[in-house]
């Protein structure tokens, strides 16, 4: 590996192609734009949640509208905060990861320390998952609480440059605050779904009661009911779609940032190629954490779709080679 080229600032790939528009834009601008778009999205989901609660209240108990809204806000905030604060512990427990030691995994520790220096983030806590399926993930609510976990299968499969690429991709998620946002968004979407279930249940009771009184029910109440039903069906789907779109976009950004940190898009591209061609045991993870991984552990190979958390691997490789 020629380490010397790394110091030449003239080679900075400081612009990348925006997958949405195909235009060349600065990496930093994209990062900032992504951040803004993501927060807007999160705020949109929360607003939708509150709107649902409000409509429920109007349809069922107009007098208690404020109460419903307060409950909705408290539940949503509580869930998102818990997800944000405990994201690392939950993810580590869910994947059965154990802490890597310098003695046992000297190579992984050295690579991670080196790439952290290049990314300008504190060295994350490093974990290993005993599984032949090559994969990795990052978690932690901010760079100070960063965690990187890789499977033993990944360590066996990749050479140093490829491993550097994967670790850089994960550190990019940490540096871009993707984990914070992803867990917030996941929790918010979860809250929307939970809300739907609670309301549907309540409507079965409240609906029966409401029909008894419906002779005196106002026009507004009926309208609210219609709007509510539409929202209840549409909101969870929309929220999930938005979440997946954000997740895919962030994977591209992490790839681009990872290539930038290592100054070596080929390392990451070649790692993705090896993972694409890997045909062995899959990593056993629950659906709730699939978005966190380097490549989607659940999706069919090169799955393309609005509901997938990751872009197709081939597309990621092609974009890296075009950097």
């Amino acid at each position: 590996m020629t380490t010397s080229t790394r110091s030449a600032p003239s080679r900075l790939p400081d612009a990348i192609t925006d997958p949405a528009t195909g235009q060349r834009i600065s990496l930093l601008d994209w990062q900032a734009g992504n951040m803004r778009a993501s927060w807007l999205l999160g705020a949109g989901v929360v607003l939708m949640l509150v709107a649902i609660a409000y409509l429920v209240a109007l349809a069922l108990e107009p007098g208690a509208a404020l109460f419903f809204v307060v409950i909705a806000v408290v539940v949503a905030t509580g869930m998102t905060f818990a997800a944000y604060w405990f994201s690392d512990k939950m993810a580590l427990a869910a994947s059965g990861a154990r802490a890597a030691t310098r003695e046992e995994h000297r190579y992984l520790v050295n690579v991670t320390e080196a790439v952290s220096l290049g990314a300008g983030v504190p060295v994350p806590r490093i974990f290993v998952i005993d599984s032949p399926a090559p994969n990795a993930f990052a978690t932690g609510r901010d760079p100070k609480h960063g965690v990187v976990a890789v499977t033993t299968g990944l360590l066996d499969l990749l050479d140093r440059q490829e491993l550097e690429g994967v670790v850089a991709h994960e550190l990019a998620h940490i540096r871009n605050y993707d984990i914070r946002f992803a867990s917030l968004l996941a929790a918010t979407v979860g809250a929307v779904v939970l809300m739907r279930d609670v309301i549907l249940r309540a409507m079965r009771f409240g609906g029966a009661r409401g029909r008894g009184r419906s002779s005196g029910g106002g026009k507004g109440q009926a309208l609210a009911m219609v709007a509510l039903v539409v929202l209840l069906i549409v909101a969870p789907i929309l929220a999930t779609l938005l979440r997946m779109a954000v997740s895919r976009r962030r994977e591209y950004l992490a790839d681009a940032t990872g290539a930038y940190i290592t100054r070596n898009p080929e390392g990451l591209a070649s790692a993705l190629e090896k993972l694409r061609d890997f045909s062995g045991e899959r990593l056993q993870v629950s659906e709730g954490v699939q978005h966190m991984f380097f490549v989607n552990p659940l999706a069919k190979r090169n799955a393309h779709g609005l509901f997938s958390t990751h872009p197709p691997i081939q597309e990621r490789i092609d974009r890296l080679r075009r950097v």
Partner: protein
Amino acid sequence: MTSTIVVLVLLAALVLFVVNIYNRIITLENRYQNAWSQIDVQLKRRNDLVPNLIETVKGYAAHEKEVFDNVGRARAAMAGAKNVDQSAEAANMMTAALGRLFAISEAYPELKANENFKLLQEELSSVENKIAYARQFYNDAVLQYNTVIETVPGVFLANPMGKSRHVYLEVPEEDKAVPQVSFGATA
């Protein structure tokens, strides 16, 4: 009355704007200075590993005196460096000298099979890699700093603050020509 308020508000906005740029410049300056200390940590660590390496290699290739002398000189230069420039120069010397040493060790199969040597080689190539990454981040930080103090609006404040363009860490040409030994192939 109204015009006074308008003037005051504009003035306050201007002050906030200037404070913002000032803080940005200081933040970026601190960043590259901190980035240098990260490089320094790795350079010191490399210097600490060297005597052990020399001892080990001498056990198998005692007559390669010139190589040992080069490493020793680089180590002394490193220890005596008084500023960033001298450290950087000594660091480049050390990189070249260690490159030679590892190139020569290829000719001694018993040395290459020595457990202690293998461990030192992994550690030293890791440190080398960390230095490369730390330099890269340093140059990134300097680039950001230079950009801010050379573009509007930072350029208006840079002069009064006594800030000027900072230099990048360059890798000398002859260093690039040194055969890169086994870095990356230790997996």
